[in-house]
């Protein structure tokens, strides 16, 4: 069972998100993360879904997505040379003795402190899965109060485009 990142272009229409997510839940496919937002063409939205499954299941997911009327294009970017990124906001315990360490970690992982309070620092961190895992491991001992992950976004490298015909 491999993890796959699937990019989908859909018509930016009422109910399209529920059609896609409903397909996954109705057929028992899992979703590790899902993001969706408009593209540079406001009539088109782009979704990125991270899922796991046997090759056979992934093939079905691809076909089933294509079968949805509002789906314009589907690409399993896992099979392409591509870039994946995720943005995470982490609120970390900022007791006196921790503060220095949080700043140091943020710096090492090229994160940014975006909010400060007497009890917490909120760090914004962007990157690949392994970078984010690495950061989280380092700050976990300090105490993570809250975390909000954006889900993965992905794009293929070079000339290859995901675009309507």
């Amino acid at each position, binding site marked *: 069972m491999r993890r796959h990142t699937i990019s989908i272009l*859909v018509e930016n229409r*009422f*109910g399209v998100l*529920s059609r896609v997510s*409903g397909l996954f839940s*109705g057929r028992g496919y899992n979703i590790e993360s899902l993001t969706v937002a408009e593209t540079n063409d406001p009539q088109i939205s782009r979704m990125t879904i991270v899922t796991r499954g046997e090759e056979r299941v992934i093939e079905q997911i691809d076909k*089933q997505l294509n079968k949805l*009327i509002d789906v314009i294009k589907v690409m399993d970017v896992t099979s392409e040379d591509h870039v994946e990124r995720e943005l995470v906001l982490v609120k970390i315990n900022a007791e006196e003795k921790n503060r220095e360490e949080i700043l140091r970690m943020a710096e090492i992982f090229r994160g940014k402190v975006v909010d400060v309070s007497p009890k917490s620092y909120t760090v914004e961190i962007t990157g690949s899965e392994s970078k984010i895992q690495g950061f989280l491991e380092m700050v976990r001992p300090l105490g993570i109060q809250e975390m909000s992950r954006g889900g993965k976004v992905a794009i293929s490298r070079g000339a290859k485009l995901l675009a309507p015909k």
Partner: protein
Amino acid sequence: MKLSGSRILIESLKAEGVDTIFGLPGGVVLPLYDALYDADIKHILVRHEQGAAHMADGYSRATGRCGVALVTSGPGATNTVTGIATAYMDSIPMVVFTGQVNSNLIGNDAFQEADIIGMTRPCTKHSYLVRDTRELAQTVKEAFYIAMSGKPGPVVVDLPRDVLVKEVEYVVPGKVLLRSYHPTVEGHMAQVKKAFERIKEAKRPVLYVGGGMILANASAELLKFVDASKIPVTTTLMALGSVPTSNPFFLGMLGMHGTYAANMAMHETDLMIAFGARFDDRVTGRLDAFAQNCDIIHVDVDPTSISKNVTAHIPVVGDLLDVMKKLNGLFGGDKTDWDGKHREWNKTVDEWKSLYPYRYEKSDAGVIKPQYVVEQICKLAIGREAIYTTEVGQAQMWAAQFLTLDAPRTFLTSGGLGTMGYGLPAAIGAQAAYPDRLVVDIAGDGSIQMNIQELATAVQYGLNVKVAILNNGCLGMVRQWQELFFKKRYSHSDLRSGPDFVKLADAYGAVGLRATKESEVRDVLKEAFDVKRPVVMDFVVEREEKVFPMVPGGGTVKDIILL
């Protein structure tokens, strides 16, 4: 010209060639019903909206055209859900128009508001909530196009009341162009040739034909193919009628209650050629024992059906009519001696056929055997261009086994969802399309009660359907499983409390007839078929009769229970 949404809808329906719709009015669709009052579209008033959906479905299956239902918001819409799901599972094209509360009230739990788009999302091919009257005509056109093209299916169009009332300029919509929807129609010639070459190498090929053949109107091409290739052919429940029962290469239906010959051929074959079938579990039985020693060619218009349950070695995506024509075109330049090549195999298959045909023990003491009734229905229907519908259960299976069919679109049954209550409204829908043909619903005493209210519809419009109830006083198929697999613990499957179907028919203004002895069966049928009114026939049949052969669920042909 400025028209109200209601008028635009009617114009749009006429533009699609709709002549009949099935529906029932209510609050939010009253403006539309007002416009229907003097429109020249026939509207059939049902007694329950499930009936409207099944009628549209039956109309569609019988004609190949798109069925149309119209209901109000809330409970009207939710009542259609079983009908929509039934059509979805069997890929039947229809458009269901549901009323919706005023746009500005949506989401407020307004009176009779239901999120019908949300509720039907998993059982529709597509759906629309119309937000602006100016989009209505285009939406209707798209809805029909989507329902009918590619792999067909039901489409829901939800119509808020204000959209129906508002007046806008009516613009006749142009051709439908959807950048996100390109159903594959033409089969890839290289794949078709590859399939043909593989067929030439096969020693024991078998054709496994599904409902897609009927949906694609490709039965005539199939017969040409069978005739040229001399390959034995079995069909699913859904494809009955695509090959005449009398065709010498026809093995009968396959699957759980299919023939010994069909199931053996599927087991012994070295090349399974699937046309518009989807390897459903009632056909495959235990998957890891299915098609172990053969290659599979799978032709289907729906890529998701290919290699979903069973991996296809040569997939061909495309409309069956197109692919069958291409295949048939290849026989011309080919020198294969098909007759000689398949002679041995056909001999083996014929032996299986004659060894275990469908059969039943003839009645003693004059008790009516349900299979006998089905046989007689067929005999007496000769020359009447009969269309048969079924409910679900034993009666459905006996109909599938013992009816003689010679044309597609003459056997309408809920295969995928297995919906009890389908048969009577579907029969009414078919009769509405073909007022002069004989339409018979083969029913159980359980199923018929699920939409019996539609008898009133049949009577009101003179749609003279004939309901043949094989009355065994129980939920027969449930009882059969309880007898065979639950130690005869007949938990909640007894129906002997009635009703008296003859009196019931009478109360509805239909004709009620009853036979309790075998000797009465033919007279009842003759009278029923001749009288120009809807008829309910109550055949009191042998209660213990079971459907055989049977491959138990999850079993293989080795587990087949013969009579």
